[in-house]
Structures are given as structure tokens and as C-alpha cells.
């Protein structure tokens, strides 16, 4: 897995790529989340369009990040989850926990609506 960080639509967009299975880059991902919290950037969108496989370790990474951001008063929302990733969210009932959208823009704009 690797990821890029961008700021658009008044939110931070983190785009994940490849196989999301934990490991060293999951640690870097959490460090990025910690930096965003320190900078007060609490509207975070994670784009999943380029994810191939996300296993339970990858899901755990996202849950940790979301919990961390929510505890700081913000939220982490998902954009463009592929149908197979959405089905993982459904069977784990996390679909009711993560807000998810069809585009980065929709996800980012949802922060101003909430």
C-alpha cells in the first residue's frame, strides 16, 4: 500500500493505493493522521478507488484512524469504495459507522452540511 495526501474542497483527501493490509505503511498512515490532528485538520476523506485488496488489518487501520479523528472532534469519511470493499463494510456492520460517498467532492462537502 502507498498513499498520497492532498487538500481539496476544504478537506484533507488521502488516496490509498494497492493492497491495504497493515504493515509499515499503516504506521505511516497513522502518523499522518496524528500530524493532521496536531494541525487541526479534522475533516478527512479517504479515497479507496485505487485499493485492490483491503483485509481485516487494513480495515483495522481505517477504524483506528477514524476513531482517532472523531475523538479530536472531526471525522474520517470514505469516498469511492469499490463494491467488494463496500461488501466488507456491510458484513462487518461498519457500513453504518463510516460515512461513505461516491466522490471526494461529495465527501468533503458533507462536512459543511453536518
Amino acid at each position, binding site marked *: 500500500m502507498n498513499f498520497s495526501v492532498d487538500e481539496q474542497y476544504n478537506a484533507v483527501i488521502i488516496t490509498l493505493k494497492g*493492497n491495504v*493490509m*497493515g*504493515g*509499515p505503511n499503516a504506521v505511516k498512515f497513522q502518523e499522518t493522521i496524528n500530524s493532521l490532528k496536531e494541525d487541526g485538520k479534522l475533516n478527512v476523506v479517504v479515497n479507496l478507488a485505487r485499493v*485492490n*485488496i483491503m*483485509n*481485516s*488489518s487494513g*480495515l*483495522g*487501520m481505517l*477504524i*483506528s484512524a477514524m*476513531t482517532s479523528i472523531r475523538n479530536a472532534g472531526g471525522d474520517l469519511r470514505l469516498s469511492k469504495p469499490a463494491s*467488494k470493499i463496500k461488501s*466488507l463494510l456491510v*458484513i*462487518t*456492520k*461498519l457500513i453504518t*459507522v463510516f460515512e461513505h460517498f461516491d466522490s471526494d467532492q461529495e465527501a468533503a462537502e458533507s462536512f459543511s452540511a453536518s
Partner: protein
Amino acid sequence: MDQKRLELNIASTFDELDLAVEQLQDFIPTLDLDDDLSYRVILLASEALTNAIEHGNKWDENKHATLRLVMQEDRIELTVTDQGEGIHWTQEDPLEEKKRLADHGRGQFFMRKMADEVYIDEENCRLDLVFHCIPQNL
């Protein structure tokens, strides 16, 4: 039909786990499976290998995990072994309200949900997953 198979033997490091999953992602398309089955096999192989390396071998680089995938006429058999002290197969339910936001504990749940058959040989650190598929000669 001829059996198609893949055998891997990896050290207990994340890099080797990552590489093993990439090798599976190259191999699975050669089996001509539908998308759903392909995805389930790769995902559960990653879960089984992760469990073997993390909970079995406890990330000891001197210990290895093996994966054997064999495609039979109407089934795919996936076997993962490790060199730990025995598989501890839990019946934890990650859907419980208090566990819903846990950052771990879903690997075995996925295997129970997405494989057609699951066999655990706790003493010999061996996990077998079976996936049913439509016979290719029909």
C-alpha cells in the same frame, strides 16, 4: 483436468507477506474464476497468511509460513501452515456492539463467512479453506 497449483514458503516478515499476496494476484487470473471467487480466495489467503505470521510465528523471521493452493475440478483448496505453538481459533463475534470499533479480530470472521469450508488442525498449525466452484468441464 490438470491440477493447477501454487506453493509458497515465506519468512515471517511483512515484505514477504506483501510479495506473497502479489504472487497470488498474478496467479489467480490464470484459473479463470469469476470476480467474486477470485476476490474471496485472495482476501482469505491474505488473512490466513497474516494470522500464520502474526499469531503463529509471532513475526519471528526465522520461522516460515507456507501456502498451498490447488485447483481441483470443482473446488479450490487453500492450505496455510505456520511454525507456531498451535492455532487458537476463536469464536469471537466482531459484530457485537462493544467490538464493532475494535481495530482487530475480523480475520477469522472473514474466513468463516467467505470460505465454503474451514478446517483447523490446531496442533499441527494448519488451516484449510475450501472454495466451491463450478466444474470447468461442464
